[in-house]
């Protein structure tokens, strides 16, 4: 896909050095309507509240933010519930089909000092443009307010706001 220049320096002491290909030798795919001045945007509907899916969502959001993309995170249903104040500290839920993996997953994350999904998102907010919105429907259903949620959540919005964000996004995901 990217096809880096295969020329390599003579290995010395097992060290291999690769120089990236010059622009002329390597045509790059560009989005049809890309505007270099406008940052690309990632929108995520975060519906899931299990740690396995929250991790995946957080890594996608964080990677995008680190690459200079604007990130719109729309929390709904179980995803929103996972952002209740302090809930992330005790949330050990894993997708039901993979409940047998839960102990291994949580143990390995601890052993390998993997940052939690909340850590990732906080890092993303610090480094990039990440907007976290809470679904008004879910809040009303469970009698919650913005003040019941973690401070990382910016505001309460509905489906129309999300659709507007998604329409302006190059990448939209449902997790």
């Amino acid at each position, binding site marked *: 896909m*990217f096809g*880096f220049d295969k020329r390599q320096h003579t290995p010395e*002491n*097992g*060290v*291999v*050095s*690769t*120089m*990236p290909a010059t622009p002329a030798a390597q045509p*790059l795919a560009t989005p049809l309507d890309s505007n270099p001045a406008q940052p*690309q945007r990632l929108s995520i509907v975060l519906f899931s509240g299990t740690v396995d899916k929250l991790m995946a969502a957080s*890594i996608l959001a*964080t*990677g995008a*933010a*680190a*690459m*200079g*993309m604007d990130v719109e995170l729309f929390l709904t249903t179980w995803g929103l519930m996972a952002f209740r104040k302090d809930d992330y500290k005790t949330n050990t839920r894993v997708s039901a089909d993979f409940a047998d993996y839960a102990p291994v997953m949580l143990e390995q994350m601890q052993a*390998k*000092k*993997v*940052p939690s999904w909340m850590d*990732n998102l906080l*890092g*993303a907010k*610090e*480094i*990039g443009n990440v907007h976290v919105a809470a679904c008004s429907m879910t809040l009303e259903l469970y009698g919650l307010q913005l003040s019941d949620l973690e401070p990382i959540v910016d505001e309460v919005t509905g489906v129309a706001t999300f659709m507007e964000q998604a329409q302006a996004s190059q990448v939209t995901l449902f997790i």
Partner: protein
Amino acid sequence: MVTTKAVDRYVDAKGQMCPMPVLTLAKAMKELQPGQVLALSATDLGAKRDIPAWAEKTGNTLLETVEEGGVLTFYLKKSA
């Protein structure tokens, strides 16, 4: 570690797993002046493709990649 060029900043991201290497890189790059060179070492399996993709997306220059004993060291120059 083989350093083939002088660097203004060295970042040790060995042992960090996705998304930490690009996050650590983005944070460190923020503190550099345009034209300065940063070296980042990583053991993350995805870093070989992720770091170049990050550089491409953010308009920074990947000067060189050195692979030694399972550790990749990326030399990046901050653009204007």
